[in-house]
């Protein structure tokens, strides 16, 4: 009898703490498990009783990587509860800031966290010596995204200026002009990024598991912060009805809740967005998708980073377009008027890793009565598990190291944000 036991404790190059277990006897899988061990922080309870003016500040801290997504979902939940409408200028700035987050998060994932898997390194550090140009470019792109967020929001991680109903401070017009130049130049870097990803694409494991893909959909644009919830199995759902999709439940081996719609699991994130909305990508992003040889629908989760690469181009292009609009119309100080009222509001955005939901109920003086947050990675945990179930039996004849590495790569492909999923 030959026994195989694989245990990965605290998987590396992902945000947060998760483990992988695999047990097989005589080439037959006994079990494979994706286990989430992060400590819960109880944000829903911390928010109780908090005034709306402090709410996005607190909920931003759910996640350091996607704090702009949390801030945006939080503000939109509060705005929906109070019936606050944003001006066109406030919207443009919010979308622009959002592009900074997509850009930074995707570059971090594709070029810093995933690249070492394909280039045979344990991290990005040795790549500085072997692939210096790519790493210098990656650092440059990340810095650009940070700087874009800095001039709009005071800082990238836990933005300061976005407030309920608008902005506490407007960006400096000259800084906007200067960053536009840098974005324009960085479009050349996008060609390099696409070429790098294309060069490693043949190494992507060939694995297919069609599932349900869920993302926001907006008739007007490739949507990050507007629209309704849509499913690849058909149908759209108003934001307020998200529970019809998420149906959260607990499992003993995970401190994050799991989510389940009609099939055994569903997927959210860049690949879901691509599968549902690729028609609406901006021209340069469409060209990148063509160059990378991808066409919706794609059923291989390892292609999430390829979809992220296309979205990086899209975010860059969209950022330039928005700055052009802002420069053409000029920036104007706008008074932000907010009148709290009792009621519920749901804010849903496409965080880099998928749909992110903040659902608040307020009392009449604008203090939170109850809050519920649903995290993209929380929705993907079950998809990761189901992929494990399908993938593991097909690779058991490979050497142990390769099995371990393939499972690790699968989890990493999802770009999981684990501490965020536990919150």
């Amino acid at each position, binding site marked *: 009898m030959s026994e195989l036991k694989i245990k990965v404790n605290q998987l590396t190059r992902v945000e947060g703490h998760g483990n992988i277990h695999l047990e097989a006897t005589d080439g037959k899988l006994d079990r494979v498990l994706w286990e989430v061990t992060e*400590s819960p*922080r109880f944000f829903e309870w911390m928010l109780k009783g908090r005034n709306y003016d402090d709410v996005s500040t607190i909920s931003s801290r759910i996640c350091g990587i996607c704090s702009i997504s949390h801030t945006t979902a939080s503000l939109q939940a509060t705005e929906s509860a109070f019936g606050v409408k944003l001006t066109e200028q406030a919207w443009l700035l919010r979308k622009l800031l959002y592009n900074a987050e997509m850009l930074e998060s995707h570059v971090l994932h594709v070029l810093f966290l995933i690249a070492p898997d394909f280039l045979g390194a344990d991290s990005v550090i040795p790549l500085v010596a072997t692939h210096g140009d790519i790493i210098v470019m990656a650092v440059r792109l990340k810095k650009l995204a940070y700087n874009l967020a800095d001039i709009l929001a*005071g800082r990238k991680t836990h933005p300061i200026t976005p407030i309920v109903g608008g902005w506490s401070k407007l960006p400096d017009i000259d800084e906007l002009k200067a960053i536009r130049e840098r974005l324009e130049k960085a479009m050349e870097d996008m060609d390099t990024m696409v070429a790098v990803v294309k060069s490693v694409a043949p190494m992507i494991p060939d694995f297919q598991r069609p599932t349900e893909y869920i993302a926001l959909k907006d008739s007007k644009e490739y949507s990050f912060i507007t629209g309704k919830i849509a499913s690849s199995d058909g149908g759209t759902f108003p934001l307020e009805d998200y529970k019809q999709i998420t149906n959260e439940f607990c499992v003993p081996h995970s401190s994050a809740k799991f989510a389940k719609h009609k099939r055994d699991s569903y997927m959210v994130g860049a690949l879901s967005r691509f599968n549902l909305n690729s028609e609406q990508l901006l021209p340069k992003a469409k060209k990148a998708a063509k160059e990378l040889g991808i066409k919706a629908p794609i059923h291989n989760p390892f292609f999430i980073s390829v979809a992220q690469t296309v979205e990086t181009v899209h975010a860059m292009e969209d950022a330039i377009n928005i700055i052009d609009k802002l420069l053409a119309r000029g920036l104007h100080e706008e008074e932000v008027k907010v009148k709290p009222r009792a009621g519920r509001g749901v804010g849903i955005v496409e965080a880099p890793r998928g749909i992110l939901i903040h659902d608040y109920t307020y009392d009449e003086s604008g203090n939170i009565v109850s809050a519920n947050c649903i995290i993209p990675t929380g929705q993907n945990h079950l998809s990761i598990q189901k992929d494990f179930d399908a993938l593991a039996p097909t690779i058991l004849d490979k050497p142990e190291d390769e099995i371990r590495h393939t499972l690790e790569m699968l989890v990493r492909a999802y770009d999981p944000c684990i501490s965020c999923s536990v919150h």
Partner: protein
Amino acid sequence: MRPKVAFFDFTSCEGCQLDALNLEVGELLGLLGAVDIVNFREIKTDRSDDYDIAFIEGSITKESEIPRIQAIRNQAKVLVALGACACTGGINCMKNAYPMEDLLKGVYGECAEYYNTIPARPISAVVPVDAYIRGCPPTTAEFVKVVKSLLLSKRPDIPNYPVCTECRMAGNVCVFQRGGTCIGPVTRGGCEALCVSAGRFCWGCRGLVDDPNTNSEKDILARYGLTIDQILERFKIYNSYSEVSKCQS
């Protein structure tokens, strides 16, 4: 020998460690040349338990984190608390206002028994800390400054005056004068009043100045007819672990 450096995360959002690497290309290459990063789970697979300087992000919020931080303390020559969660307990400590069972039942319902959680606390509540890099998240400039001092075996020079001092230097209109409330009078400066300069107010993310009670800026509250109690709700967001009484006279 280049000092061996390790990064560890406890209960946190992991924003601090990611921001720590938000350096310019030159700074990053300089840092990678000056130290040997041997342990950094979030970006690196290989790990070693032989290190000199440990950067700790996050608070202690469950039993199993206590032996883990003790083991790190035993190994590290220098232990640095990185960010508000590690330095003061930060926002994680807001949950301490509730009994732990209520939290577990409230969030996990029937499944509460699967989990454990203890009241959140800063690193210094469990093991001695040698240096603090404050903020939620710390500014990159301060991170670089502290790392440089550590490499030169110098004590980092972190202000012990309140945010108000820097706020005035930045030429801001005082938040109280605008009719708002601000934790700046009792909060340790060093961020150049970042949030007030961005049109908002201070939440106190850098923790208290050493002696908030006798600090001269306290009269700002008096000037606007406010007491510490009135700013307490906001104060508790970041500082509910530190004795609130420190500020009450």
